[in-house]
């Protein structure tokens, strides 16, 4: 009884030590230039083990460059980084044993079948012929591709191809996976399929670093979010904490015709006591709402008194879109100056 307790305590201690010492991904002052363009200007990242960390940022913010450095494809010009406890430059080989990389394209051989692809990559991970074959069958089952195992990858749907790509990068069950825009260009169904696979990976204990342009994807998958802009991390935290940081609830009013935007904005501004954001394209006026119910009822009454035709009205929590807009000054998906990787 006594001994058991001691054992538990010491194990907890030990794990505690490991936790505090080891991040799945640790980067300090990472720098990278491509000619004149600065892709990373001193990026710091600390990603604890387990879960999904979403790396968000506008196009050209340095997301892909960061992933390429962390996965040993690019050498940094300055700073240092460790993945799974190994330095990405000096111990690149150990890093390569500890990571999986699924990039923007499904990097599989189109002419080979799904099984042949996984077998080939398994051999290149030095599993041996028999083990590579066994592992290929395992993964085909696990990623829901068993029925298509004998089909050539070029006949796969987009979602299937990305899942094959995920499976190929998961051959060694690595502790850290980098997913660089894994669902770009997929239809909603394909996207859902990939999300399911990512959730399964995380349930198995893998740490996932995910870059994405879709904030919905980050909201769906990420436990932590790191926003980067112009090659630097500008915010980090859980999605909830980031949303709270932007401010409290907001009221959205969508008017029926664009001509009524000004009137609506004046009313919303008066009720909320703040300058509202006006988006002409979606005919939407939005402003911070300190008291949810009071703001909603007062605004609704004032709008109706003024005869403004309202299509939709509601109070909502801030979204990652608001976080993104506040932090980077523009919406997700808007182009910044493109930096070639």
């Amino acid at each position: 009884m006594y001994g058991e307790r001691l054992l538990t305590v010491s194990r907890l201690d030990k794990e505690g030590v490991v936790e505090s010492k080891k991040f799945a991904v640790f980067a300090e002052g990472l720098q990278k230039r491509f000619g004149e363009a600065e892709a990373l200007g001193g990026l710091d990242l600390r990603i604890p083990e387990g879960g999904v960390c979403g790396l968000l940022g506008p196009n050209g913010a340095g997301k892909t460059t960061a992933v390429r450095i962390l996965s040993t494809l690019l050498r940094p010009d300055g700073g240092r980084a460790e993945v799974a406890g190994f330095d990405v430059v000096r111990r690149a080989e150990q890093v390569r044993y500890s990571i999986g990389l699924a990039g923007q394209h499904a990097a599989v051989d189109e002419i080979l079948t799904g099984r042949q692809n996984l077998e080939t990559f398994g051999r290149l991970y030095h599993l041996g012929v028999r083990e590579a074959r066994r592992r290929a069958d395992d993964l085909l089952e696990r990623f829901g591709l068993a029925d298509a195992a004998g089909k050539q990858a070029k006949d796969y749907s987009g979602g299937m191809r990305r899942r094959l790509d995920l499976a190929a990068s998961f051959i060694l069950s690595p502790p850290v996976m980098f997913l660089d825009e894994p669902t770009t260009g997929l239809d909603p169904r394909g996207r859902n399929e990939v999300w399911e696979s990512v959730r399964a990976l995380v349930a198995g204990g893998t740490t996932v670093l995910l870059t994405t342009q879709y904030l919905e994807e980050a909201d769906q998958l990420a436990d932590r979010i790191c926003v980067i802009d112009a090659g630097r991390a500008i915010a980090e935290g859980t999605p909830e904490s980031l949303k709270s940081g932007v401010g409290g609830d907001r009221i959205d009013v969508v008017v029926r015709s664009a001509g009524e935007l000004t009137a609506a904005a004046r009313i919303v501004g008066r009720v909320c006591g703040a300058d509202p954001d006006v988006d002409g394209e979606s005919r939407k006026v939005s402003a911070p709402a300190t008291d949810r119910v009071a703001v909603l009822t007062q605004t609704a009454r004032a709008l109706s008194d003024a005869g403004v035709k309202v299509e939709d009205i509601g109070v909502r929590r801030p979204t990652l879109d608001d976080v993104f807009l506040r932090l980077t000054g523009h919406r997700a998906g808007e182009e910044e100056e493109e930096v070639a990787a």
Partner: protein
Amino acid sequence: MRASTPSMPRTWPDRLRWAIADAWTVARRDLIHWFRQPFGIVVTLLFPVMLVLMFGYLFGGAMSVPGEGASGGGDYREFLLPGMFAMTMAFGLEATMTSVATDAARGVTDRFRSMPMAPSAVVLGRSMADMLNSVLGLSVMVACGLLVGWRWNESIGEALLAVGLLLLLRFSLLWVGIFLGLVARSPEAVAAVQILVWPVLFLSNTFVAPETMPGWLGAISEWNPLSATVAATRELFGNPGWGGETWAARNALLMAVLWPMVIFAVFFPLSVWRYRRLSH
């Protein structure tokens, strides 16, 4: 839960074994392509065969063949075939470049580079696969040549030496292909190289004897690396049409060894450099 992770080899013989095993796995991928895309392979192989038939029978009558060869001077097909062999080798450059550029564009090269495999295996595997491809292509051409009446008239040893020279040319051009593929990074750029390969092909002794060209053009043709291999193989096969005025033409055998070595000496380091540059 975690698949057994093999440890990295420490000693260099182990590393070498590793590199060869990885290279073979990469090359094996190409061999699977043969079986998965038999139609594509057949088309690739049939193209030179078609050229043989076209030049051999359509234009052949109008071509004059220099030198009084063993067959009494003038069998154009005897003259043509060694040129066609060398041309098949030269076309291999485009195949190599296409494969390298496609892998780079599709992210396959990046996947390899993010894996704990021997870094040299990516390039080594490519060269193994392409050399095997070339042996197959050359075998088909020789069979086709024998069907249209081409023969080697010297010993089997000299014939094999000629085959060796052809494969040596292919091997050197392989590195040109790897370099260009790494530079281009997209398969579309291969079209530009295809446009350049044809003039090099025609500015040689492949189809006509350089003596029949204007003097300066003939001299360029005789110094063409392709001409060196063609002339040397004609000599070794005992086919008509070798010989010429320039030093290069008179020393075709030597040049057929020197040229590929020079090309290799230039493009092998360039390829390695370019491959390393991928991480910059």
